[in-house]
C-alpha cells in the first residue's frame, strides 16, 4: 500500500507538488533539514549560536517542552486536546519546591511525589473527558483554571527561592553525560519509549484507531474511553516530569511558573506534524517541533530582535503548520481519488 503511495504518477503531479508530498510524508526529516538550514543561516550572523553553553541552554529548555509535547501529541492523536499542561507543570514545580524547602521529603522522594502529582492531575482530566464525556477543550480549560487556582492558593503570593532548596539540587540542569545534558538524555529516553509504544504495541495502534475513527474503533472492540483516559493520564505524568525538571532548571518558583507554556507545547505538536484532526502524527515529530521553537526563540535573542515578537511568531507558526497540513491532506485525497478513477 505504501509502495503505491510512494510512486505517485508523474503525469498528474508536477515536480514541486511531488516534493511537497514527499515533505509531508517525511515531516520529521524535513523539519530536521529546516532546523539545520536555519542553524547555518543564524550561525553566519551570530556565530555564538554554536557555542557549547548556548547549545546547552537551548536544548535543556527545549527538552522540557519536548517531554510535555510527547504527552500532548498522544492526546491530540486521539482527537482531543489538553490545555491544562502549563498549570500541571506550574503546580508540580511549585509543590516539589515547597516540599523541598520545608524539608518534608528528601530530593528523590520529592521528585517522585511531583511526578505522581502530575499523574493524578492527568487522571482527573481523563475521568472528566472519558467518563463524564465533557469535550476535552472545555474540560481542560476548566482544570487549567482549577489547577492554577490551587497553585495560587498554595503559594499565597510567596515564592520558593533557590536558597530554600537542597544544596546542589539545581546542578542537575547543567550536568552532562558524555557531553550531552542530562535533561536531553531524559527527553530522548521518553521520546524513544513513547515512539516504540505507539508504533509497536496493541495499545499504540488503538490510540491511532481512536483518533482516526472513534465509532469504527468502538465497533472493532477497542475501549475508546479507556484509551482516552490512559492518554490523558500519560500526558499528566509527562507534564509532571516536565514540572519537576522546570523546578530544577529555574530554581526560583512562584505561582505563575510556566504560564503560557501550553501554547508552546501545542505549537510544537502541530509543527511536528501531528494531525489536529487526530489519527496521525508521531511523538518524534512533536519533540523536533519543540526543538524547532526553542531554536527560533534563541535565534531571536542572538540576532538582537525584539523578544516581544516571539509570542506573535508562535501564533503564526501554529497557523502555518495547520494550514499546510490541511492543504497537503486535501491534495493527497484528491490525487488518491484521481488514481482510483484511472
Amino acid at each position, binding site marked *: 500500500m505504501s509502495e503505491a503511495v510512494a510512486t505517485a504518477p508523474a503525469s498528474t503531479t508536477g515536480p514541486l507538488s511531488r516534493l511537497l508530498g514527499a515533505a509531508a510524508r517525511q515531516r520529521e526529516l524535513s523539519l530536521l533539514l529546516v532546523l539545520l538550514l536555519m542553524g547555518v543561516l543564524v550561525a553566519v550572523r551570530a556565530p555564538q549560536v554554536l557555542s557549547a553553553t548556548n547549545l546547552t541552554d537551548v536544548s535543556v529548555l527545549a527538552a522540557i517542552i519536548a517531554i510535555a509535547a510527547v504527552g500532548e501529541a498522544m492526546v491530540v492523536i486521539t482527537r482531543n486536546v489538553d490545555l491544562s499542561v502549563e498549570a500541571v507543570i506550574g503546580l508540580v514545580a511549585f509543590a516539589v519546591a515547597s516540599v523541598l524547602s520545608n524539608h518534608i521529603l528528601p530530593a528523590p522522594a520529592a521528585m517522585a511525589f511531583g511526578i505522581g502529582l502530575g499523574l493524578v492531575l492527568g487522571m482527573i482530566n481523563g475521568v472528566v473527558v472519558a467518563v*463524564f464525556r465533557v469535550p476535552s477543550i*472545555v474540560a481542560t480549560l476548566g482544570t487549567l483554571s*482549577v489547577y492554577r487556582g490551587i497553585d495560587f492558593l498554595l503559594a499565597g503570593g510567596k515564592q520558593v527561592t533557590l536558597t530554600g532548596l537542597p544544596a546542589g539540587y539545581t546542578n542537575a540542569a547543567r550536568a552532562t553525560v558524555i557531553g550531552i545534558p542530562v535533561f536531553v538524555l531524559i527527553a530522548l529516553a521518553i521520546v524513544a519509549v513513547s515512539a516504540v509504544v505507539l508504533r509497536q504495541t496493541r495499545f499504540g495502534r488503538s490510540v491511532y484507531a481512536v483518533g482516526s475513527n472513534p465509532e469504527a474503533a468502538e465497533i472493532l472492540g477497542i475501549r475508546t474511553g479507556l484509551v482516552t483516559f490512559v492518554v490523558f493520564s500519560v500526558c499528566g505524568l509527562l507534564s509532571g516530569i516536565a514540572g519537576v525538571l522546570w523546578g530544577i532548571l529555574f530554581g526560583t518558583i512562584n505561582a505563575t511558573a510556566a504560564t503560557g507554556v501550553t501554547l508552546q507545547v501545542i505549537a510544537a505538536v502541530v509543527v511536528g506534524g501531528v494531525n489536529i484532526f487526530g489519527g496521525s502524527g508521531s511523538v518524534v515529530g512533536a519533540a523536533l517541533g519543540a526543538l524547532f521553537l526553542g531554536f527560533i526563540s534563541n535565534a531571536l535573542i542572538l540576532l538582537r530582535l525584539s523578544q516581544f515578537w516571539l509570542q506573535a511568531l508562535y*501564533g503564526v507558526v501554529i497557523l502555518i503548520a495547520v494550514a499546510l497540513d490541511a492543504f497537503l491532506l486535501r491534495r493527497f485525497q484528491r490525487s488518491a481519488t484521481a488514481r482510483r478513477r484511472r
Partner: protein
Amino acid sequence: MNAGARRCLASLGRWEVLLLVVLIALILYGSTVSPVFLSSRNFANLISAIIEVAIMSLPMALIIIAGEIDLSVESMVGLSTSILGYLYAAGVPMELAIVVVLIVGALGGLLNGILVTRMGLPSLVVTLGTLALYRGLALVVLESRGISSFPTWFTTFGFGSVPGLPIPWPFVLYLGLAAILAVVLHGTWIGREIYAIGKNQAASRFSGVRVARIKLWLFVLSGTVAALAGVILTARMASARADVGIGLTLVVVTIVLLGGVDIFGGRGTIPGVVLAFFTLAVLGNALRLTNVSSDIQSIVVGLLLIVSVVIPTLARRVKEAYDRAQGGRRVPTGSVGGPGEVASP
C-alpha cells in the same frame, strides 16, 4: 406568537428556570451575609466587575450554537487596548482611535473566519493560533509600557452611570447588544440558520444554508465585540497595558455554557446566557463580600465550567436509562416534555 418565540419559551422551561432559582438563592444568600449587598452602589459594582466578559459572551453564544468556538477573544481585548493606548499616546484623537480599534477587531475576526470557513481548518486550533498571534501583536505595539491619562469623558464612560440610576454605561451597551442578538437569533431566518448549522452542518448546506458566509460574519462580530470590550476595559481601568485580558476566554466560555448553550452546537438561548451572566456576577460579588480569595474564585469558575457541561450530559443519560426501563421506548434526545421526562418530580 411565531415559532421562534415559542421554541424560546419552551426551552425556558428547563435549564433557564434552574438558573433563575440558583440566582435567587444566591441573591438571598448575598443579602444575609452582607448589608451592602442589596445597595444600588453594589449592583453597579457587581455588574461592572465582569461587564467586558458579559459583552463577549453574546457573540460567543452564537458561535458555539453554530458549532464553532473563538478562543482568541481575550487576546483581541489586549490588542485593542494596546492599539488604543498607542494611538492616543501618539496624539490621535480618542474618537478616531476607537474607530480604528473596532476596525482592527473586525479584521481580526475576519482572519479567524477566513481560516475556518475558506480553508476548512478547525476553529479550535485557528483561534488558539490567533490567541498567541493577537497577544503577540499587542506586546509588539505597546511592549512593556503602560498608557494612562485618557480624556475625562472617556474614563467617565467606564466608571460612570446613567444619571440618576445605578446603571453603568457599559451595561446599557450590553443590554442593547443582548436585545439585538436575541431578536436575530430567536426571531429571524438568520437565527434559524445558525441553529441548523449547529445541529447538522452538512444537511443545512444541502438545504441551501450559506454555512460559510454565516460563520464568517459570526467571527467578524466576535472580533469586533472583543475589540469593543477592550475599549470598555481601557475606559474602566483608565489605563492600557499589553497583558490586559489574559484568562478572560475561560470566563466567557463558562458564562455561555452555564447559560445552557450546548457545547456541541445547535442549542441555547440568549436569555439563558444573560441569566448566566447575572448568576456569575452575583456569585463573584457574594464571594468577594465574604472575603473569599480570588484564587478560590478562579477554582469555582473552572469547576462551574465543567459542571455546566456534566449536568446536562448526566441528565440525558439518566433519562435514556429511564426510558429504556420504561419498556424500550425510544424518546429522541432533545424532545421537550416527552413521556419519560425525568425532570418532573
